[in-house]
């Protein structure tokens, strides 16, 4: 039997459709949640979470399946070379999906306590994930930008999801304004790139930029006819300007100093599961975009922009670590700490060799799970009548819930980079790459910042372990929260105790398709 529309669909999924199948599935599930949400009673709304989980699982399965053709051909291209499926995408897509699963698991009980159990929330999580996946798979400036905006718009809404809470609204507004501003800067950079190369495909842009700079240096070194109508300085300046604008836009998104001011406020104001999502997934996705742009488009000129990135990295390390020392709100503290983590990852970009690439991927991987774990403990703390975000709220956590306290300790150790945890292995690769590429001063900076970092992470530990509990209630952990914490703990410890498979994965991850 031959049904035209069905066979057209089949053809589609053999070709272009295949490269965006994971995203299609997530979108369909997101739309499905929006529809089904109408039919659910108030008490049944948690079922949306189940649907969201199902969607991510389908998508994850597809990503897993895509591995086979990728291993065979190196990469799959689609939509006139604007979307690619390569190891880079597979790694990051898996990471985003894992983060989404963790956030969904952590959200159910939290939203119940906040009395905001709505279907849109889960749909937005999935749409944000779709955006992030396009950020990792796009090799066309338009696709990348659309992915970024899909993600960002979902996040603006999610940050302000607690409509009745002032902090949440304030955070959302701040996020929208600064986010729009940074997107604008980024778009300006993109437009310059297009102007320079007459293409939006980054592979072609890269080739054009190379030819252009070769051409310009050739004419600059040859005698000029008197009638020449160009300013050589301007000609050389344009690619630099494009790079700087793109870099600034992306540094906003990853919250690197001095473009980080939005982060602490947004982290503090957003509902904590959304904070997890912003700090973990949005940052990773922005890094995916940044890595592909920096390494593919501007890869040839690494020696020129290295110093800019190194400056930003050291500034992030310094300011992130110093500002975190005095915070009393754990979410703000972790916001500043995540700024310092950005510094470490950017240092990997400065080194830029093979070890550094492995290190960046490993670091991002570890970062996702250990940060999600640390926030998850805070989410578990959130009970009726207790916000649980101030350092004081952690007092005596050990007496109230020994398991939560042990978990918190392990995540803090990992965040500060004490072996044998995932966080240490991430730092290990970064440090090694700095030594390999002869940046001893940066390496010394980087290692010594572990010391203040340990101090503020252990301020959290001191409150949880060494202070007496006041009137605070005992902690009740839901099973979804327990699963999320268990996953985060497993990865944090496994990647520290037996890093071999994770190292291979990280090594595999930073291979670009075309």
């Amino acid at each position, binding site marked *: 039997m031959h049904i035209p529309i069905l066979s057209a669909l089949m053809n589609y999924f053999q070709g272009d459709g295949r490269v965006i199948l994971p995203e299609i599935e997530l979108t369909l599930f997101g739309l499905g949640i929006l529809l089904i949400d109408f039919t659910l009673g108030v008490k049944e709304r948690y079922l949306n979470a189940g649907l969201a989980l199902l969607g991510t699982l389908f998508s994850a399965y597809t990503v897993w399946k895509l591995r086979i053709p990728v291993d065979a051909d190196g990469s799959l291209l689609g939509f006139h070379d604007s979307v690619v499926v390569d190891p880079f995408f597979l790694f990051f897509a898996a990471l985003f999906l894992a983060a989404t699963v963790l956030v969904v698991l952590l959200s159910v009980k939290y939203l119940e306590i906040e009395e905001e159990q709505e279907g849109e929330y889960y749909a937005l999580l999935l749409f944000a994930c779709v955006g992030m996946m396009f950020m990792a798979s796009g090799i066309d400036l338009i696709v990348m930008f659309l992915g970024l905006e899909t993600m960002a718009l979902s996040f603006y809404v999610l940050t302000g999801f607690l409509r009745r809470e002032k902090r949440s609204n304030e955070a959302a507004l701040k996020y929208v304004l600064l986010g729009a501003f940074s997107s604008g800067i980024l778009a300006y950079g993109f437009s310059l790139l297009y102007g320079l190369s007459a293409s939006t495909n980054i592979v072609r842009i890269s080739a054009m930029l190379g030819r252009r700079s070769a051409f310009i240096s050739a004419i600059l070194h040859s005698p000029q006819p008197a009638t020449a109508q160009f300013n050589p300085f301007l000609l050389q300046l344009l690619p630099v300007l494009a790079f700087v604008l793109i870099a600034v836009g992306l540094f906003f998104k990853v919250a690197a100093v001095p473009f980080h001011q939005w982060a602490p406020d947004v982290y503090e104001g957003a509902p904590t599961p959304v904070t997890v999502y912003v700090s973990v997934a949005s940052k990773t996705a922005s890094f995916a975009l940044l890595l592909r742009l920096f390494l593919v488009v501007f890869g040839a000129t690494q020696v020129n922009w290295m110093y800019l990135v190194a400056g930003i990295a050291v500034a992030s390390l310094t300011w992130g670590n110093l500002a975190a020392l005095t915070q009393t709100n754990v979410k703000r503290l972790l916001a500043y700490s995540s700024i310092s983590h950005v510094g470490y990852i950017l240092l990997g970009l400065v080194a830029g060799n093979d070890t550094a690439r492995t290190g960046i991927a490993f670091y991002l991987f570890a970062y996702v799970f250990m940060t999600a774990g640390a926030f998850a403990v805070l989410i578990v703390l959130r009970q009726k009548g207790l916000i649980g975000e101030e350092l004081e709220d952690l007092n005596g956590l050990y007496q109230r819930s020994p398991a939560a306290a042990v978990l918190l*300790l392990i995540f803090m*150790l990992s965040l500060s980079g*004490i*072996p*044998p945890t995932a966080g*240490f292995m991430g730092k*290990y690769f970064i*440090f*090694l790459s700095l*030594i*390999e590429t002869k940046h*001893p001063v940066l*390496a*010394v900076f980087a*290692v*010594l910042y*572990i*010391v203040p970092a*340990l*101090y503020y992470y*252990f301020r959290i530990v*001191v409150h949880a*372990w*060494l202070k007496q509990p006041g009137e605070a209630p005992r902690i009740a952990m839901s099973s979804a929260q327990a699963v999320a914490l268990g996953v985060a703990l497993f990865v944090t410890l496994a990647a520290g105790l*037996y*890093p*071999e498979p994770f*190292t*291979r994965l990280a*090594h595999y991850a930073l291979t670009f398709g075309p």
Partner: protein
Amino acid sequence: MDFVANHILSVVLFTPLVGALLLLFVPRENENAHRIAGNVFGVLGFLVSLPLIRWWHPGASKFSFEENVAWIPSIGARYHLGIDGISLLLVLLTTFLGMIAILSSWSAIHQRTKEYYILLLLLQTGMIGVFMALDFFLFYVFWEVMLVPMYFLIGVWGSDRRLYAAIKFFLYTLAGSVVMLLGILALYFYAPLPAGATRTFDVPTLLAGAQTFSDPLKVWLFWAFFFAFAIKVPMFPFHTWLPDAHTEAPTAGSVILAGVLLKMGTYGFIRFSLPLLPTDTALRSRIISIVIFLSLVGIVYGALVCLMQKDMKRLIAYSSVSHLGFCTLGIFALTPNGLSGSVLQQINHGISTGALFLIVGVLYERRHTRMISDFGGLATPMPNFAAIYLIISLSSLGMPLLNGFIGEFTILQGAFQVSKAWAAWGVLGVILGAAYLLWLYQRVMFGPVTQPANEHLPDLNLRELATLVPLVFLAFWIGIYPKPFFALIEKPVENIVRQVNPNFYPAERAKLPVPELPSAAAETK
């Protein structure tokens, strides 16, 4: 049995860890069960380390009982354990003092007993691992892992300023070890690779490779490692964490800190720093003179500060600065006497200072104060205690027939061979040591009982005797017949001296009268 024999180091290493894991399943309320389980694994940990002596080959010049399994192949880190005579002594010291420290806490700890014993046992595994690891990566993991339980031991069960002391200890040590991490990575990266080989963290390979480095690189590496070890030992300007940590820690914590933790620094000097000394003589002697200068300052300064302490525990803590100064003096004299004296002195310090902390712990449990002025004339109510305390004090100050004398004498002998001035300053430290320890003893034990509360202090009970008597026994053993100990470290020390001070043995031989061999005599004629 074969399996155990082939993996004896792993067994010794993980026995405490197994104990800690088992303790996790003991219910929280049952304090006595925690105590019993903790002590059982403390004793067990010591017992399983005894076969190391029995199976030891006295002539072994390289590492024994080696285990070498792949761990993280993609970066070349391996699970590589092995010990030589020096690390054997330190491992035995660790298991022995660990057992005693656990026993000493029976009645001192009343809150969170379960966690207390778990942490002590974890700490035990971490420390043993440091002395056994022959892979830099593994070494670093143990080196860092061990900080966490110690932090909690001080922070939870310490006295009033425990939070401050605990984080100070952690941050100081961490600052040193992250710099060492860079040193390790540089060593890993710059070590020459034979064709086709992958990078490795193997300690012997890397240290052998380091011999080909240029002198400036070696100097940088030396200081990177030095920084970490000098903080750990602690040497003079880096010692400020020590009085706080020792004073605030619970008794068992102080015993472990002084007895074992500080030795990780000196062990690191011997194992890793000495091979990184540059070959250029001028450069080398400048480094040596800096380190020796710091050691001598430490010896004298530590002793002088002891003289003005009001707190017994703080006094003993500062005495460690002085005593460890002897150890580093011996190490960097680079003579066989200095080195073997230093290793022995490390063991002695573990025994004597460990016992001194136990003694303060005994008093603290009875009176809940450590101030010297709160005591006086204790010899009357506590005669057995007085006797043991006297022996230990004498052993610590270097009285002949007791262990301290052997160690200090050998070190001074080794230092004397290089420079008389070094030995002279060292001797000053010995004299001052006698002064502060005897003066402390006099103020606490002699004279009339000054405070009514002290009149009826109970003497040592059986458990306390069980913790102190073995230490007294060891003090006498090393003092009277140290030969078995020297025999263990003779070979490794000789290897080290041959490697780092190649001129020493030929020079010493030249000083000897020419042997009257028949052929040699014939030639001279």
